[in-house]
C-alpha cells in the first residue's frame, strides 16, 4: 500500500479525505493522482495544470525526495503533497 499525506488545505476542499491515507500500489505519481481523482472528482485539477503537469506551487515528494508526475512509485512508498510556502505573495 502507498501512504499518502495530504495538506490540510486540500483536505478542506474534499470532504471525506484525510491528512493521512493509504491507497493500493500504483506505478507512478500520475497514476496515484488519477486514483485520488476518481475517488474525489476534481482533485487532479487542484493539483495539476493541463499537460498534465503539477501546478507551480504544489510540491510533491516520494519517500522524502522531490518528485514529478512521471516519478515511479514502489510498493510501500510514502507520498507527501505539500503547498509551497508563499510568504510575501502580493495576492495574499
Amino acid at each position: 500500500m502507498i501512504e499518502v499525506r495530504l495538506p490540510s488545505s486540500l483536505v478542506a476542499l474534499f470532504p471525506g479525505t484525510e491528512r493521512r491515507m493509504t491507497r493500493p500500489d500504483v506505478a507512478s505519481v500520475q497514476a496515484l493522482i488519477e486514483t485520488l481523482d476518481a475517488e474525489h472528482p476534481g482533485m487532479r485539477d487542484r493539483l495539476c495544470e493541463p499537460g498534465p503537469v503539477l501546478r507551480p506551487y504544489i510540491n510533491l515528494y516520494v519517500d522524502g525526495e522531490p518528485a514529478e508526475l512521471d516519478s515511479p512509485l514502489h510498493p510501500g512508498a510514502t507520498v507527501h503533497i505539500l503547498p509551497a510556502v508563499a510568504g510575501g505573495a502580493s495576492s495574499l
Partner: protein
Amino acid sequence: MTKRMLILVGTKKGGFILDGDEGRRQWSTRGPLNEGWPIRHLTSDRRTGTIYAGGGSEWYGPAVWRSDDLGASWSHSSQGLTYGEDGPAIETVWNVTPGADALYAGVAPAGLFRSVDGGLRWEHVKGLTDHPSRPTWQPGAGGLCLHSIVPHPSDPSKMWIAISAVGTFATEDGGETWEPRNSGVRADFLPETYPVTGQCVHKLVMAAGRPERLYQENHCGTYRSDDEGRTWVSLEDGLPSTFGFPMVAHPRDAETAYTIPLNGDSTGRYMPEGHAAVWKTTDAGDSWTDLRAGLPQEGAFLTVLREAMAVDPLTPHGVYFGTTSGELFGSDDEGATWRTIAEHLPSISSVETLVIDA
C-alpha cells in the same frame, strides 16, 4: 411575504455573506467562506437562489464554487475550465454570470466559458478567443481579464462581454462569432485615441428594461450606448475624474446609474481628495449628482474595484459598495444617505445582493 436579504461580498480572503432583512439596518456576517480562497466575484442566480463564487487559489488554481443552501456548504469545479495543453494556464475566474441558457464565467487570461449543468463542467466559448484581434490583446495592470458578462435578457443569441485593455465585444449568434463595439470610446494610453480594440473598459452593465442601452465605466471616461454598443457617447461632463472602476444600473429605471470616480490612473486611484462619494445620474448621464451623506469626508483614501458596487431590487432600492481596505457601505434610500455596514473585512473584490422569501 417577508423577505430575507443577503449581501454577497467577494474578498481576497474568501467570500462573506451578510444576512439581513427588508429593513436593511441589521446585518450578521458569515465568513470567510470558500476556504479563504481569493474570490473575485461572489454572486447568485436570482431565479434559483444558488450562490456562485469565482476565483482562484495561488496553489490550487481557478474554480467556480457553488452553494445550493445560501452558503452553508459548497462544491467547486474547474472541469473544462482550460485552454488545453497548448494554451496558457488559467489564473483565476473574474466573473460568474447566469444567462438564460447557461452559466457563464469570465477568466484571466481573457476568455469566456459556459456551463449547462450549473458549473460542474465548463466549455470554452472559442469564438471569442478566435477573434482576429486576439494576438493584439495585452494585459492591463489588473491582468488580461474578462470581467463583464452581459447576457441579453430575452434573446440568448445576444451577449456582450468586456475585457480590460481590449474592449467590449458582442455576439448575436450565441457566441459563435464576436465583433468589437468600442466606437466612440477613448484609449488615451495608445497612439491612436479611437482604435477598433484596445479600450480599457472597467465595467459594462445594461440598463433595466432597455437591452439596447449599455453603460460603461472606463479607464478613460464614462460612456453610454443606446444602440447595443455600436456607438458610445461620453458621460464624463459633471464627474470629478475620467477614471473609475464600478458602474451599476438602477434595478428598474433605465435613466439612472451609479459610478464611483477615483482621482486618476497614476495618482493613487482613490476617491478624489479623500472625500468619499458615489455619483448618480437620473438622466442617462447628461448630469451627475454626488452622494455623500454618511460617507467619510476626511482622510477617506478609498478604492472601489470594478465588481464592488451593487444595487438591490427593493423599493426604494439600496446601493452598496465595498473598498479594498475592507469597508462595506450601504444606502437603503437610493443613495441619499449612507451607513457603514461592515469594517475590517479583507480587501473587497465584489459586492452583490440577493433577496429571497424568508
